[in-house]
């Protein structure tokens, strides 16, 4: 585990509250522009937030009670992976973690797209793995009827994760040799055949992308229940959970993941981040009023529909909460700002300095840059195909 809480900001549209766009000002009209995304992400980068996640889906947005696109909230989105790529050159330290689905996509494209993000960002890529369960999404592809049960979606997702992971490992670090004497650009013995034949997907040969700086960018998975926790343990390096929602205590939510690790026979204790939806005010009363106004505009209290706990809170309260979660064994938090840019800005400009003051984070200037795996406190990725190192000076 890292010696300080991991802090991740979850980005989505104008924020996580369905009425947030109403208070976003001019930003609401340019959610599809690079300018908007660059401004929001650069702000997180500047103060040393560990990573941002970018949500994605194949749908234009949520549906209303009649089952039609709900245009009272933000509809329309950009591809998360490409957004992460486009902001990468403007940022220096923040991890970039797009959501990429494993349900209707091609594992080969998923693998090479994320490897390229890792190259572009010099080792700051991550992958929020997700399944796309709805019939709406299936109908947009028209390849299968949709409505698959969770077990089969997860089974397919496990295969895709395995294929992606093998492709990421398929080139050794030193596969490119540029040996002018023999005319060889690569040493083909250092590029490996993934040779995976599964029920859902198969891949032969190697990735087209040479090994990326992290080798295998960290994989994040959100787990609400036991089956998703088992999926997360099988496929992910970092697990996101939602304590405080649906009456679940923080302690028992964490236990969901630890139990799944035990069932899977895994000795690894994965970093677990608590997902919290936050509205940050200068006082609890102000925050509560702002949330009430948003809820009134949406027509439904967000707390009654959100999968994560919704907190109208202050910076001081959040610092305390994060410290408590650390004590319980959480690696840190993923904060879902209810309003972007208001609450994402508060995370960057107020929460981060307060965590530094509380001794929970080092000042950004005094921390060395590191790849995203290091920031999450997970070990460097060793390729499954790596040749065993022969100890020096020992006769063969």
């Amino acid at each position, binding site marked *: 585990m890292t010696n300080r809480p991991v802090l991740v900001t979850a980005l989505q549209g104008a924020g996580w509250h369905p009425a947030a766009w*109403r208070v976003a000002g001019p930003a609401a009209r340019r959610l599809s522009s690079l300018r908007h995304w660059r401004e929001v992400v650069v702000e997180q980068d500047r103060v040393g937030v560990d990573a941002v996640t970018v949500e994605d889906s194949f749908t234009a947005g949520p549906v209303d009670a009649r089952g039609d696109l709900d245009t009272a909230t933000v509809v329309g989105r950009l591809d998360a992976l490409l957004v992460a790529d486009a902001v990468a050159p403007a940022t220096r330290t923040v991890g970039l973690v797009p959501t990429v689905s494993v349900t209707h996509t091609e594992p080969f494209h998923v693998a090479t797209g994320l490897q390229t993000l890792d190259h572009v960002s010099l080792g700051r890529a991550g992958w929020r793995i997700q399944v796309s369960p709805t019939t709406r999404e299936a109908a947009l592809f028209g390849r299968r009827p949709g409505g698959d049960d969770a077990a089969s979606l997860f089974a397919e997702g496990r295969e895709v994760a395995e294929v992606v992971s093998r492709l990421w490992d398929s080139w050794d670090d030193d596969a490119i040799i540029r040996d002018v004497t023999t005319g060889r650009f690569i040493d083909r013995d250092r590029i490996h055949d993934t040779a995976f034949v599964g029920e859902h997907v198969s891949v032969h040969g190697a990735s087209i992308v040479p090994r990326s700086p992290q080798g295998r960018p960290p994989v994040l998975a959100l787990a609400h229940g036991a089956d998703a926790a088992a999926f997360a343990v099988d496929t992910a390096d970092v697990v996101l959970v939602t304590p405080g929602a649906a009456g679940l205590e923080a302690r028992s939510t964490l236990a969901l993941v630890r139990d799944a690790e035990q069932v899977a026979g895994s000795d690894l204790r994965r970093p677990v981040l608590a997902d919290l939806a936050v509205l940050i005010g200068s006082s609890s009363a102000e925050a509560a009023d702002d949330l009430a106004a948003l809820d009134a505009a949406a027509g439904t209290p967000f707390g009654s529909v959100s999968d994560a706990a919704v907190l109208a809170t202050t910076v001081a309260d959040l610092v305390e909460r994060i410290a408590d979660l650390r004590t319980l064994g959480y690696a840190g938090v993923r904060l879902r700002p209810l309003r972007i840019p208001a609450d994402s800005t508060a995370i960057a400009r107020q929460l981060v300095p307060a965590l530094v003051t509380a001794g929970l984070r080092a000042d950004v200037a005094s921390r060395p840059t590191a790849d995203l795996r290091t920031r999450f406190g997970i070990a460097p990725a060793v390729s499954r195909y790596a040749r065993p190192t022969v100890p020096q000076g020992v006769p063969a």
Partner: protein
Amino acid sequence: MTSKRQVHLAAHFPGVNNTTVWSDERAESQIAFSSFEHFARNAERGCFDFLFLAEGLRLREQKGRLHELDVVGRPNTLAILAALAGVTEHIGLVGTLQTTFNEPLELAKQLATLDHLSDGRAGWNVVTSSDAFHGANFRRGGFLDHADRYTRAAEFVELARELWDSWQPDAVVAEAGTTARPAAGAFADRSRIRDVDHHGPQFDVTGTFPVPRSPQRHPVVVQAGDSDEGRDLAARHAEVVFSLHTEFDDARTFYQDVTARLERVGRSEDELLVLPGATFTLGDTQADAEERSRAIRRAQVSPATAIAFLEQVWNRDLSAYDVDGPLPDVEPDVDADAITRGRVRHARDPRALARSWRERAAAEHLSIRDLVIEVSTRGGFIGTPSSIAAEIDRYVQERASDGFVVVPHTNPYGLDDFVDRVVPLLQERGVHRESYADGATLRETLGLPGHVLDRQEVPA
């Protein structure tokens, strides 16, 4: 006001074949983003219309093993273009993307995203493929009959246009309510977002497209296939066509052929640009340029590359032959499976080809390596900056092309000389822009009116 036809220039990022000389001492990583950034910024400095990236789906193989001799490994096309959108302002970003191993919804979503992120600078080189070798890396394998490649491609492009059209430009209204009526107003006007309900031989797609209308509405569509079907697809759907025809007469014949096809589908000549891909070797004098060209071509054909090239025609192991000696006396093996996979290069009649090469080598006293240099590398345009600028101008004024795709032989500095020395001369001649128009989309930079489907508004 000049009446001269304008030269359009595209910059081809050096590829994974032996045109790219990796042994050059200034050659840098083909995967590091810094190489792409240098290349893109440099092309933008030369006011190029767009930069172009090919796509890789599987590493090349020869004799059942990975081909080691050329540059190997490249990025995901869409991901690198999106990153380049973040470091450039004006230049178009065009990538090759398959219609066979992609699904329309996802690719249309990604291309619309790229168009948003680049403020209207996205382009799509539509290519088809069907072979099982590449298919092995994808869910459906080699599912598509070779004959159906273009059927699928055409329906794919039509469906993508349908998806891109489904949001009207004013669909996002973002009208917040008032303090008195906070829940009034809507983020989008539902009546301006049309659901797609497409059912065709290749695709069944139903629902709401996820991306709002992008600045260009449709990314610029490019086509490169040289076959009859490829040219027809270009005539019907493309706005830019890449060609391999660089000799003047050959280029003009191709230009006329494509133009005639345009007329048959009711489009006019100014709706499509024809850009041959070519290499350019500059020197202070003609003799200097010729000398440089010889050195480059020799670097492109290393001894190992010469043998590997002959093996593709002979279809057998020739590693025992001396590259500085005469051509192999054995005959090509025409019965065995092809030893090369992952690239297009088929000799129709290998035995006849081998015979003609042997005769030529004997007559001109060429070794294996000399012969391969002669038949496998194209010198392209060789000359002084002023002679090359004059030649480019002539091609364009005399309608042999609308410009060129410049293919440098080293990465990432291979374009620098062209930008430093040829571009200013084209600008002096009044045939190449000296700066970009502010906020121009790629389509506007290309001076294209847009595809006919692109100019109609479909009611919701």
